[in-house]
C-alpha cells in the first residue's frame, strides 16, 4: 500500500512538475555530457601515450667497418661482443626495463633506409655493407629509456645509443600537461554540474514546500516525505544520464572515429569502447548528485 502510494506520488509529481523534471533532465544531460568529455579527454591522452610509447625504441648501433667512436677502436663488433650485449639485455639489472629486443642486420637496415628515402638520390649511392647493425629495444616503460641508454654508452663494440631523448622528453612533458589539463577540465565540469543540478533540484523543492508543509502537518514521517522526491529527482537524473551517454557514444563514433580519425592520422583516438567505460561513471555521478541534493534541498523544509 505505502509502496503503491509512493509510486503514485512519483508519477503525479513527475507529471505535474513536468517543466521542472525536464529542466533537471536537461541540466543533467548538458553537465554530464561535459563531464563525460572531460573523462574522454583523459582517455585520449592515455591512448596517445600508448600509441607513442609503442613506437619508442632505444637503438644500440654496433660498430661497423668505418666507425670512429672510441668504443670502436677494435674495429667491427665481434660476435662475442654481440653475445655480451644480448646477455646484458637479459641480465637482472635490465630485465625490468626491457620488453623486447630485435636485431637489425645490415640488410634489414638497408631495406628500411631505402624505404625511408625512396625519393632521394641518396639511396642509390648507399650499399647494404655501409649500413650499421643495431639492436632495437622496446621498453616496458618508455619514460625510463635513459637507464638503458646510459648502460650501453661505453660498451665495447657499441658505436652509439640513440634514444630520441630530446624529442621524447618534450613529448612526455606535453602528454603529462595534457593529462593535467583534462583532469582540470573534468573537475571543473564536475563542479559545475554539481552546482547546476543542485540548484535546479532546490528550485523544485521550493515549488513543493506547500505540499511538504501539509505532509508534515498531517504527521508524515520525514522519510515518507523525502522518498518520492528523491526518487523523482533520481529518475530525472537517470534519464539525463542516459541521454548524455548516448550523446557521448555518438560523438565518439561519428565525430572522433568517423571523421577525426580519418583526417588526422598521426595518433590513435578514443573509441566507442572508451566511451562505454565512461558511461557508468556518468550514471553514478548523475544519480549521486541528484539523490544527495534532493535530500539536502528538502531538509530545509523538514526541520522539526
Amino acid at each position, binding site marked *: *500500500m*505505502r509502496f*503503491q*502510494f509512493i509510486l503514485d506520488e512519483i508519477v*503525479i509529481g513527475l507529471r*505535474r512538475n513536468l517543466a521542472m523534471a525536464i529542466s533537471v533532465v536537461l541540466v543533467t544531460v548538458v553537465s554530464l555530457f561535459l563531464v563525460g568529455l572531460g573523462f574522454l579527454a583523459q582517455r585520449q591522452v592515455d591512448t596517445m601515450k600508448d600509441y607513442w610509447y609503442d613506437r619508442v625504441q632505444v637503438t644500440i648501433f654496433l660498430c661497423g667497418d668505418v666507425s670512429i667512436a672510441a668504443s670502436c677502436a677494435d674495429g667491427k663488433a665481434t660476435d662475442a661482443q654481440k653475445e655480451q650485449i644480448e646477455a646484458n639485455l637479459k641480465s637482472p639489472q635490465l630485465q625490468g626495463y626491457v620488453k623486447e629486443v630485435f636485431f637489425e642486420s645490415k640488410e634489414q637496415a638497408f631495406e628500411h633506409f631505402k624505404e625511408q628515402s625512396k625519393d632521394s638520390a641518396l639511396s642509390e649511392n648507399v650499399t647494404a655493407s655501409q649500413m650499421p647493425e643495431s639492436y632495437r629495444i622496446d621498453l616496458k616503460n618508455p619514460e625510463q629509456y635513459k637507464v638503458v641508454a646510459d648502460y650501453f654508452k661505453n660498451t665495447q663494440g657499441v658505436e652509439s645509443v640513440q634514444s630520441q631523448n630530446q624529442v621524447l622528453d618534450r613529448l612526455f612533458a606535453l602528454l603529462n600537461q595534457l593529462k593535467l589539463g583534462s583532469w582540470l577540465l573534468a573537475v571543473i565540469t564536475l563542479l559545475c554540474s554539481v552546482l547546476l543540478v543542485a540548484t535546479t533540484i532546490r528550485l523544485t523543492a521550493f515549488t513543493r514546500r*506547500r*505540499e511538504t*508543509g*501539509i*505532509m*508534515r*502537518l*498531517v*504527521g*508524515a*514521517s*520525514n522519510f*515518507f*516525505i523525502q522518498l518520492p522526491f528523491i526518487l523523482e529527482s533520481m529518475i530525472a537524473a537517470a534519464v539525463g544520464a542516459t541521454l548524455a551517454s548516448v550523446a557521448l557514444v555518438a560523438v565518439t563514433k561519428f565525430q572522433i572515429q568517423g571523421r577525426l580519425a580519418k583526417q588526422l592520422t598521426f595518433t590513435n583516438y578514443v573509441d566507442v569502447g572508451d566511451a562505454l567505460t565512461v558511461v557508468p561513471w556518468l550514471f553514478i555521478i548523475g544519480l549521486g548528485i541528484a539523490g544527495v541534493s534532493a535530500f539536502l534541498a528538502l531538509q530545509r523544509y523538514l526541520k*522539526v
Partner: protein
Amino acid sequence: MIRFDDVTKVYPGSKHPALNSVSIEVGKGEFLFLVGASGSGKSTFLRLALREEKATKGVVRVSGKDVAKLSSWKVPHLRRTIGAVFQDFRLLPNKTVFENVAFALQVIGKPRHAIAHTVPEVLELVGLAGKEQRFPHELSGGEQQRVAIARAFVNRPAILLADEPTGNLDPNTSVGIMRLLDRINKTGTTIVMATHDHEIVNQMRKRVIELENGNMLRDEVSGVYGYSR
C-alpha cells in the same frame, strides 16, 4: 490534554517574547478560544503545541508528554494525534476533495480499504457528501475549510487546533463552520481555536483566554471577546 507550564517563547532575532511566562491547562473535551490582537501570541501557542517551535523556557505537555523531549523522528507521531486547521485552508490544489482527505491517511500508511471506508464517512460528517470528486478551486471558501476540517479530523485526533479558521469567511459561512467545530467538540475532541471574531466568541460562550503582547490577560470559563470592542 494540553498543558503549558510557565512557557516563554522568544523568537531568534527578536527582543520581546512572543509568549511570556504563560501557564494554561486545557482539559479533555474542552473548547477554548484564544483571542487577542495580531502578534499577541495566539499562533505561537498553537505552534508550540504542534512542536513546530520549541519553548525557550518552561514545559509544553501534550497528552501528558513533554514535547521538547520528543526525538525528532517521533514528532510526526505527535502530529498524528493533533488535527490542525488554518485560515488559508492549506489544501493541495491538484488533488480532489477525496484525495485531499485521503492524503492524511495515506502518508501515515493506512490501508486502502480503510481509506475508502473512512473518507466518505468524515466528508458526510462535515457536510460535503457528493462533492468528493471536486477540486478545491471549484469549491467556496466555506466548503474548502470543511475539507480542511475533514482532513484534520479524519484520524480522529484527540485535539483539534484551529488558527483563525473563519478568518477568510463571511459571517454566515463562519456560523456553519462553528457549528461543525462544535459538533466535533461534542464527540469528545479537545478544540483550541485562535480567533479575532467577536461575534463567534460571544455567541459560543466557551472558555476564553485573552493574550496581549505575549501575556495572558484573562482566562474566563464562559467568556466574551472583550470589553472594549
